[in-house]
């Protein structure tokens, strides 16, 4: 489990192209497309929903660009981040779920929301060696335990 981080939902409800251009200008990189991530050392944007980005980091720059076209809402209190690291993380995510985690289908940099052992999770393939799972805080311990139990199966 990772330490708590400031997380926000960024939703754009109108003029998406114009907002995207303003944000790109402010951040220095483009908003990621659906199921992809983008970011730099200070801020990471993960796209899980058509109109919503999960933003990790300081959102002040974005807030200034939104106007009446969107809003930021803090959500970090309800999410626990877990890092699944090592060569078998793709295999581990196949336990109790049904999402294709192969490198071809879910390359480094990709994001996806899916269900693992009845828990809705959001995944971010941080690199080929690690994946961050964003888990509802209420289920975090249970899912951690589930993954822990499955570890001996990996590579077996």
């Amino acid at each position, binding site marked *: 489990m990772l330490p708590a981080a400031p997380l926000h939902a960024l939703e754009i*409800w109108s003029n998406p*192209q114009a907002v995207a251009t303003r944000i790109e200008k402010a951040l220095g990189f483009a908003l990621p497309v*659906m199921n992809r991530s983008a970011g730099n050392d200070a801020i990471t944007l993960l796209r*899980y*929903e*058509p*109109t*919503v980005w999960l933003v990790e980091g300081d959102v002040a720059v974005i807030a200034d660009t939104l106007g009446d076209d969107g809003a930021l809402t803090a959500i970090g209190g309800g999410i626990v981040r877990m890092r699944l690291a090592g060569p078998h993380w793709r295999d581990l995510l196949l336990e109790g779920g*049904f999402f294709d985690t192969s490198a071809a289908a879910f390359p480094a940099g990709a994001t996806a*929301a899916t269900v693992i052992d009845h828990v809705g999770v959001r995944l971010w393939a941080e690199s080929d060696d690690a994946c961050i799972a964003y888990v509802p805080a209420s289920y975090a311990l249970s899912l951690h335990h589930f993954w822990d139990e499955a570890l001996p199966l990996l590579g077996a």
Partner: protein
Amino acid sequence: MYQITCPHCGPRAQTEFTYERTTDSVVDPAGDTHAAMQALYTRANPMGLDDEIWRHTYGCRAWMVLTRHRVTHEIRAVKAIGPEALP
């Protein structure tokens, strides 16, 4: 278990989706009682294709219309609904 091609996420397992209702049972909040109750309480329920509203509830949370066959379970078409979104 169906494979539903989410307009935003591509092919995903049905377990990530929920069925809501058919498109002809959408109740117009501004409509009169008779129209509302007709929409709410009558269905064609065909042994064939129908247009159904589904949601990728445990994925991208977006809504869509599936044209789905009630016997073969073939999904003929999927169309996104909801606010305008970037690609």
